[in-house]
Each structure stands twice: as structure tokens, then as C-alpha cells.
């Protein structure tokens, strides 16, 4: 009767335990740790590499990601399939919903899609710049690094929450003017 795959929302503890067990599998079977943000560098490198190969090869950081190694690698396959995994979960749970301007955003910045999409683009750019400086994101540092007790990751996690809490309160707690 109650097939768990049909339940729209799972307990966060069950989800967290599932991700923990998934990391056992990546370490044991694949000798890898969950991560996501490196793939965004590979994607940027591939675009620059197509437009201007010389430029891509001469940039030390991009070259380290795209010269002598495949662009579409284990993590890129993982990241792309995350979209399909979420789609599958949403369809099974009948919880898929198109959302363009989330309510917390609209409360402060209004219902404009253009404003929201511009904000999302800028937020994405800032976030990934920070992730690459720090050496990882919520997956690579937050989950994989945190569970390995990496000092780098725990510094990142504390800084991320501190800045996120501060920024969210500044951004979203006053009503739109």
C-alpha cells in the first residue's frame, strides 16, 4: 500500500543515512568521493576549449582539468544524472512542480522572473567562485570532506553556514520596497 518510492517527502534522517551509505559505495567500489563543483570547471573548460583552444590550454587552472584527461568523466556523469534522479523521484512521488520565482524570494524582490533569473545567475557565479577557491562545495567538502573529518572541509562548512545565515537574513527578512 504505502510504497516508499511513492511518498513525496522522506524523513531527512533517512535521506542523510542514504547519502552516507552511498558514500560507502563510492569509496569501496570506485575509490571516489561524492562531489559536484569540479564538473562546472570541466564544463567551462570545454566551452573555452571549443571557442579558443589556445586560450584554454594556456590557462593553468583550466588546463589542469581538460588537458590529458576526459572532460566528461565520472563526476560529470554523476552530476548530469542527478537531474534525472530527481525527476524520477518527483514523478514517482507526484511532487514535481514548476517553480520560477520561489515565495521567499518573491517576498523580498517581487514576482519578476527576470530579476529572479538574474539573481540566480549571479548567485551561481559567486557560489562557484567560492567553491573553487575553497576546493569543494556542499558535496565535496560538506558531505565527503565532512565525513572524512578533513580540516579543510570543517573550516569550509563553518564559514559557509556563517555567511549563508548572515546573507539570507540581510537579503530576505525585509519586505519588498
Amino acid at each position: 500500500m504505502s510504497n516508499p518510492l511513492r511518498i513525496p517527502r522522506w524523513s531527512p534522517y533517512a535521506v542523510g543515512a542514504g547519502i552516507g551509505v552511498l558514500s560507502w559505495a563510492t569509496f569501496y567500489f570506485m575509490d571516489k568521493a561524492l562531489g559536484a563543483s569540479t564538473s562546472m570547471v570541466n564544463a567551462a573548460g570545454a566551452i573555452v576549449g571549443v571557442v579558443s583552444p589556445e586560450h584554454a590550454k594556456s590557462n593553468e587552472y583550466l588546463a589542469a582539468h581538460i588537458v590529458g584527461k576526459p572532460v566528461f568523466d565520472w563526476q560529470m556523469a554523476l552530476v548530469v544524472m542527478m537531474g534525472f534522479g530527481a525527476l524520477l523521484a518527483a514523478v514517482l512521488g507526484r511532487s514535481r512542480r514548476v517553480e520560477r520565482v520561489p515565495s521567499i524570494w518573491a517576498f523580498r524582490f517581487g514576482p519578476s522572473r527576470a530579476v529572479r533569473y538574474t539573481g540566480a545567475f549571479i548567485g551561481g557565479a559567486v557560489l562557484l567562485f567560492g567553491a573553487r577557491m575553497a576546493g569543494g562545495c556542499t558535496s565535496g567538502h560538506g558531505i565527503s570532506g565532512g565525513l572524512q573529518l578533513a580540516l579543510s572541509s570543517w573550516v569550509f562548512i563553518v564559514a559557509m553556514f556563517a555567511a549563508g545565515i548572515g546573507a539570507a537574513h540581510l537579503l530576505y527578512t525585509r519586505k519588498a520596497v
Partner: protein
Amino acid sequence: MFDTPFFAPTSILLQGAVVGLIFGFLLQKGGVTRFNTIVGQFLLRDHTVLKIMLTAMIVGGAGVYAMLQLGAIEALHVKSAQLLANGLGGLIFGVGMATLGYCPGSAVAAIGDGSRDAIPGVLGMVFGAGVYAAAFPWIKAHILPVGDMGKVTLSTTTGLSPWWFVIGLAVLGAAGFYMLERWESRGASGGSRPAGGGVARTA
């Protein structure tokens, strides 16, 4: 891409694909493919993100350190501690994540879940990666070397067994979550909580 094929071997891609499918599935079931859940965490209204992350770390850490001790795996994948870069990068990341409302993995999952604003978010990420690459020479010279301690963990830095930290996290987490659940079920604090927040485990 240069000097190699564009794609990694199929077996490697299949492994990544299976992991990604499960990871994305779990994130959607956890509700972190929604802006309001992520920003709700930073606004301290909805603690889903914290519950998922900390549980994943406790369960994952116990298994990975047990496998390491039993010789089932040979090595960890610890990233270098470069304290200024980790801290400053984390601060920048937090500001960006509060603005975007997704992190890199959950943004891609959010696209699958119908959150259209995650699409410009991911495009912004690719742009941000390019900007970082352009700034890399300066960052490498001025930021990365500050507080560079190599691939250390809380265990190797302090000389304590990793189990102190794993068990400590589990105990702290269990006690913290117990109190949090009691507080959440008692309060629900007058509708300040965004729709869809909180723990829904019934059906």
C-alpha cells in the same frame, strides 16, 4: 579533451551515472531541490539541510573509517587544508548559496524537479568557474599558500583517534536532533515556517 578522448571509459561513466541517479533521487525526496528549503535553513526556519548533512556525515564517516581500518579501502580522499582559501571560499560560497538557493549538486537536481530558476543558476556556475580560472594566477600566489597544512584531518591534526570525532558527532547529533524535533513539534511558531518545510514523513 586535449590529448585524450572527450569521454571517460563507459564503465566509469556508468558508475558515475548510477551514483548520480541515486544521489539526485535522495535529494529530491529530502526536499533540498527547493529554494525555500535551502534558504529556510539559512533563515533558521527549516533545519532539513542540517539534518541531512549531519546524518550523512555520521553514517558515511562511520562506514568509511571502519572500511579504512579493516583494510577494505586503501586511502581517504581528503582535500588540502589551505585555511585562508577554505575559509574565504566558504564565506563567498555561503553568500552565493543564499542568493541562488541551491548548491551545485542540488541545483542540477532542482532542474529535474521543475525549479526553473536553477537553470540560470547552473549557467552562472559555469561562468563563475571561468572567472575563477582567469583569477587563478593571483589566487595561487596570494590566497592558497596562507595556512597551507596539506591533506590533514581533525584526527591527524590532534593526534586523537578518528572515532572520537565520529562518535562525538553521532552523540551531539542525536542529542541535538532530539531537542530540535521536540522544539519543532511543540512550536511550529505561528506560521513563520515556509510551506513544505518541516518533517513530513507520513503518507
